[in-house]
């Protein structure tokens, strides 16, 4: 009772101006994830109410701070579930700011300590898991935090912890899944998972390279991050695929540790994972980079040391070890190299079965591993080479302005503007970005043109989503190339100046990629559906062959050619007689990482009537 009285007294002694000041400090706002709303008031982005001690804590920083002081002042020996144990960072911080009026003994916080010891963090890195176009969830890549227990950066990562923010999606209906994912319908939570699970998931199962970026944090800051992650375990955040996603919330943790950085303030509408790496790099927060190669990348690299003949044997062994092991007829060193490739190839071919621990697959592989174990040679597989020009930290900014001017036959000159939210096309600066893929969201343009003496502004084209993936054929894999584009365009501007048509376009085919991805040639079958009133019955369908070619001379410039022919268009009664041909040639030169100049010429032939359009443009990436 006496203790309580003293506590209450000491609380009232605290100058309320101090409390007011603290409640307005950036650190407090970041600790509680308060952000300004559209109406100017503060609201926490945390949505699980367990994150707050005061019922109005989500919107009232002052009330929340007072309640925290009130609760920690009353318990010198907090236990699990008490404010100080639930929020160690907050309570330590406020105690420090007030000049340590409370002597708090945290040793009763059992589960907190269990967590703290288990993670045992000394260093922190941001890990970027490469673009994965096979899964729309991860098309833009993914980031997580890796906490390392060893001071030495060359020590193994195998015992590190991965701190992951992800949505808990338990929606089976695909429509609701997409809608909920985009508009905050899922609860995003932080989880600490042994990093080796993350390696298995990304590198061994999804074949994505993992880039690790060591963060320039002090040991004290790393410990603060761990404390804050613990605090975040008490809550969830509504997950927004484009904005409040994995990458955004990792930045918010860094903002807590270093309030001056304001990293989250770079992202008000959407947060692109690779771009957050670029921003960290620009702030000088990255001290070193490292690439962990996927099973697929490692298979490719190990294969470089073998002749075609040897590779064929490695493949045969991977396909059926028991039957083909007898084909090994080289010296033990060469045999070991072949077996090493066979092991990777087996894991690559059987990734899904290995993931679910399929017993038959395991038994099938056993002779291969036994043969390798019997071979006395110790593999000395070196770390993969690090090509910094491929590092996502070096990529161009995702958002792009384009100012252009040009000429269209029979319509005359025009000026135009295009804006793209994200991310990359085949001719954008190649450093750090996908080289054989295009990934764009929200790209739209309009034109200004003089027509019959009148100035007109017209819609040009809009793409909600453009995904193009051209993985190259190689010895181990025959991947399918594909394209998807959903949007609208103004196709017949001569017939109808401002008549946008809805367009959905898709292709499938096969690609050749050569010379470190400088050369790309893709051969596809393309299909397109359009909706516009001027078509018979209001729509048109076209199908036919398509080729895409791209050559990068160097990091500075490249050219591309894209061409397709649709056998039929809208007059379905005359299939084969009213084809549509379209070709576009484009070149681009990058003055630096944020400004490029380009030129483009396209030709469209429909109903034996040809349209030519030529334009020059300047692009600014930001």
């Amino acid at each position: 009772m006496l203790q309580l009285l003293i506590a209450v007294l000491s609380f009232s002694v605290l100058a309320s101006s101090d409390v007011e000041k603290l409640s307005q400090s950036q650190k407090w706002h970041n600790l509680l994830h308060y952000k300004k709303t559209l109406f100017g008031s503060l609201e926490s982005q945390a949505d699980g109410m367990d994150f707050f001690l005061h019922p109005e804590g989500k919107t009232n920083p002052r009330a929340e701070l007072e309640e925290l002081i009130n609760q920690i002042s009353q318990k010198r020996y907090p236990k699990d579930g008490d404010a100080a144990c639930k929020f160690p960072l907050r309570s330590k911080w406020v105690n420090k700011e007030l000049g340590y009026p409370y002597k708090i003994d945290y040793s009763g916080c059992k589960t907190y300590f269990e967590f703290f010891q288990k993670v045992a963090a000394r260093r922190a890195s941001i890990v970027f898991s490469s673009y994965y176009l096979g899964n729309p969830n991860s098309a833009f890549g993914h980031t997580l935090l890796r906490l390392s227990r060893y001071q030495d950066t060359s020590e193994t990562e195998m015992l590190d912890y991965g701190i992951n923010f992800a949505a808990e999606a338990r929606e089976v209906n695909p429509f609701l899944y997409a809608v909920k994912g985009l508009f905050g319908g899922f609860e995003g939570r932080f989880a600490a998972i042994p990093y080796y699970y993350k390696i298995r998931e990304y590198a061994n199962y999804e074949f994505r390279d993992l880039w690790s970026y060591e963060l320039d944090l002090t040991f004290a800051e790393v410990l603060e991050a761990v404390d804050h992650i613990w605090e975040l375990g008490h809550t969830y955040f509504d997950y927004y695929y484009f904005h409040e996603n994995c990458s955004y919330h990792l930045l918010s943790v860094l903002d807590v540790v270093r309030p001056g950085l304001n990293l989250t303030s770079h992202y008000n509408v959407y947060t692109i994972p690779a771009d957050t790496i670029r921003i960290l790099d620009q702030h000088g927060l990255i001290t070193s980079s490292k690439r962990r190669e996927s099973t697929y990348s490692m298979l490719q690299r190990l294969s470089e040391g073998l002749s075609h003949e040897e590779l064929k044997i490695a493949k045969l062994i991977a396909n059926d070890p028991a039957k083909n092991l007898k084909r090994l007829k080289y010296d033990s060193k060469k045999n070991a190299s072949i077996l090493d490739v066979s092991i990777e190839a087996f894991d690559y071919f059987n990734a899904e079965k290995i993931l679910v621990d399929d017993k038959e697959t395991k038994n099938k592989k056993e002779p291969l591993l036994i043969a390798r174990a019997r071979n006395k040679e110790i593999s000395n597989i070196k770390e993969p080479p690090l090509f910094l020009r491929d590092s996502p930290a070096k990529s161009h900014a995702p958002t792009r302005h384009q100012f252009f001017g040009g000429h269209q036959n029979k319509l005359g000159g025009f000026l135009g503007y295009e804006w793209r939210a994200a991310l990359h096309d085949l001719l954008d600066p190649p450093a750090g970005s996908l080289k054989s893929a295009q990934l764009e969201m929200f790209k739209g343009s309009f034109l200004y043109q003089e027509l019959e003496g009148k100035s007109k502004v017209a819609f040009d084209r809009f793409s909600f989503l453009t995904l193009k993936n051209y993985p190259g054929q190689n010895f181990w894999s025959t991947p399918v190339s594909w394209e998807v584009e959903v949007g609208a365009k103004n196709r017949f501007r001569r017939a109808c100046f401002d008549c946008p048509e809805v367009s959905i376009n898709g292709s499938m085919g096969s690609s050749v990629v050569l010379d470190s991805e400088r050369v790309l040639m893709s051969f596809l079958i393309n299909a397109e559906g359009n909706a516009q009133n001027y078509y018979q019955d209001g729509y048109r369908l076209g199908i036919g062959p398509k080729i895409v070619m791209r050559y990068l001379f160097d990091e500075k410039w490249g050219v591309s050619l894209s061409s397709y022919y649709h056998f039929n268009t809208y007059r379905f009664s005359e299939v084969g007689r009213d084809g549509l041909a379209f070709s576009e040639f484009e070149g681009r030169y990058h003055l630096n990482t944020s400004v490029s100049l380009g030129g483009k010429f396209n030709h469209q032939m429909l109903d034996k009537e040809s349209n030519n359009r030529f334009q020059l443009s300047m692009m600014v990436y930001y």
Partner: protein
Amino acid sequence: MKKLFIVLAVALMSTSSFAAKYGAAGCGLGSMVFEGDQTWWKQVLAGTTNGTGFQSVAITIGTSNCDAPTPFKVTSAHAYVEANKVALANDIARGDGETIVGLSKVYGCENAQNFGKDLKANYSSIFTQDATTLEVTNNISNVAASSCNTRI
């Protein structure tokens, strides 16, 4: 027009259902493996839900600047072997690799290279026919006991 919507719908459906298979962004294996655990902090500590009580090996690290009492557990060997068994079998057959480096830390083994060689030499007695993870772990522990200059 109607047809177009159907095309659009089918296209959307096929990509999204593909997505649903994997769970949300980045939320894959970890949460799959540990699904069903009730307490949130266990979820946060996903690794602990798996195979506690076996072969826990302690290592000591310095306490400078660190509130954490020592010694503490890195992880249980059983949990480590369970999660890494495919890569570990590859590395043991090859006699080298990062899962062996990690394993040597778990056992407090000073020389990962020697440990790797010894594991390789004992491959067939470690990965016996139809061995459970626990048996594999025990077999590895036996190799560690003789190979590593360590207390178990």
